[in-house]
């Protein structure tokens, strides 16, 4: 019996220890941001592998999510004779929730796992310690450009996701289901508030970008340097990112929209 408690205690300690190491690691990243800003080419290369390579996935996913929202929304709204509100429904759910959340989940699967695997393999093949031997700070050289690239890419990807989704909803709603085109846009413009909806969605996507990239680079840097360790770290990145995104989404939604 007492053994279980001991195991529980050990696990809790392990959790807090990892959290602490993650925080120290994050502070190191922040401290080395200036050294990356003098060499923006490092950042551009990472923006390519983190952002541009996720672009097609985000566009296709956004298009289909928007189209499905329009189809399902039409089914429910037409019961109340409120098909004109379809544009509002599609835009509000995309801009407030689905854009940031689904883009972040896809981003964790596409870019986050790749970051962890790359950094973990660098560690396993002792490239990171090699850099240290040459007096090159691996955090400033390898980690921070990737972190910043994730932080910049995520809001852009979430915005593109929402915009493409609204266009997808437009194709289905106006093109296929025959809703009035003017109503689709004008109802949307009347109901979607810039500071309330668009800016809050943007804040969400920035927070998600921060947490997903932080988890991804930390898991990679902290991975056990074996092939099994790297594979475990990659799995943990995706699972923990998904949990963190959904949990933070609830907290942010409660803070932003709780009083309406």
């Amino acid at each position, binding site marked *: 019996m007492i053994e279980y408690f001991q195991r529980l205690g050990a696990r809790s300690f392990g959790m807090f220890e990892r959290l602490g190491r993650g925080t120290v690691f994050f502070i190191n990243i922040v401290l080395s941001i200036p050294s990356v800003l003098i060499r923006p080419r490092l950042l*551009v290369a990472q*923006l390519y592998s983190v952002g*541009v390579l996720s672009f097609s996935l985000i566009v296709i996913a956004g298009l289909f999510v928007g189209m499905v929202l329009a189809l399902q929304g039409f089914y429910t709204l037409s019961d109340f004779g409120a098909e004109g509100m379809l544009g509002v429904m599609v835009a509000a759910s995309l801009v407030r929730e689905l854009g940031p959340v689904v883009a972040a989940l896809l981003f964790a699967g596409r870019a986050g796992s790749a970051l962890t695997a790359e950094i973990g393999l660098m560690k396993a093949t002792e490239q990171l310690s090699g850099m240290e031997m040459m007096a090159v700070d691996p955090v400033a050289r390898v980690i921070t450009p990737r972190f910043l690239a994730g932080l910049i890419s995520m809001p852009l990807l979430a915005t593109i996701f929402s915009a493409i989704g609204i266009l997808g909803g437009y194709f289905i709603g106006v093109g296929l289901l025959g809703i009035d085109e003017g109503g689709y846009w004008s109802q949307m413009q009347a109901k*979607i508030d810039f500071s309330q909806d668009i800016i809050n969605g943007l804040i969400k996507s920035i927070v998600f970008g921060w947490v997903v990239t932080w988890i991804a680079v930390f898991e990679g840097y902290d991975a056990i340097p074996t092939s099994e360790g790297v594979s475990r770290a990659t799995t943990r990145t995706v699972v923990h990112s998904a949990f963190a995104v959904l949990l933070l989404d609830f907290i942010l939604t409660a803070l932003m929209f709780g009083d309406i």
Partner: protein
Amino acid sequence: MHMSRSIEILVGFFVAMGFVAMFFLSMEVSNLSGVSADEGYEVKASFENIGSLKVRAPVSIAGVKIGRVTAINFDAQSFEAIVTMQIESKYDQLPSDSSASILTAGLLGEQYVGLEAGGEDEPLAQGSELEMTQSALVLEQIIGQFLFSSDAEE
């Protein structure tokens, strides 16, 4: 450090796409384009009951949207609701004896302020007050009156 030009171009394209999407969301999807730079002028009207009128609700005349409700306050002296409306400055020829009523868009739609033009020559200006107002129709009261009157007939 070796980096091909195409990577830089693609990154530039990606960032530009992000900004285009942001521009699209702010201009086409949200109400940012509706908030015009010119402030217009403010008029007030007091209502006995505003129903569920909300700040930012549209103000329209003959079905055309000409402004927005900017503030709703309660006057503790007259026990009436003071609704402040902002009307776009291009509509500066509205007669000063126009009347305001609170209407509902559709049966279950949101409430808005409908103006009806009067006959006075003098136009509405900053700070004018609309004298003739009609309160919101509260559905429960109408149903109550209907039940009451049908009871009385029997």
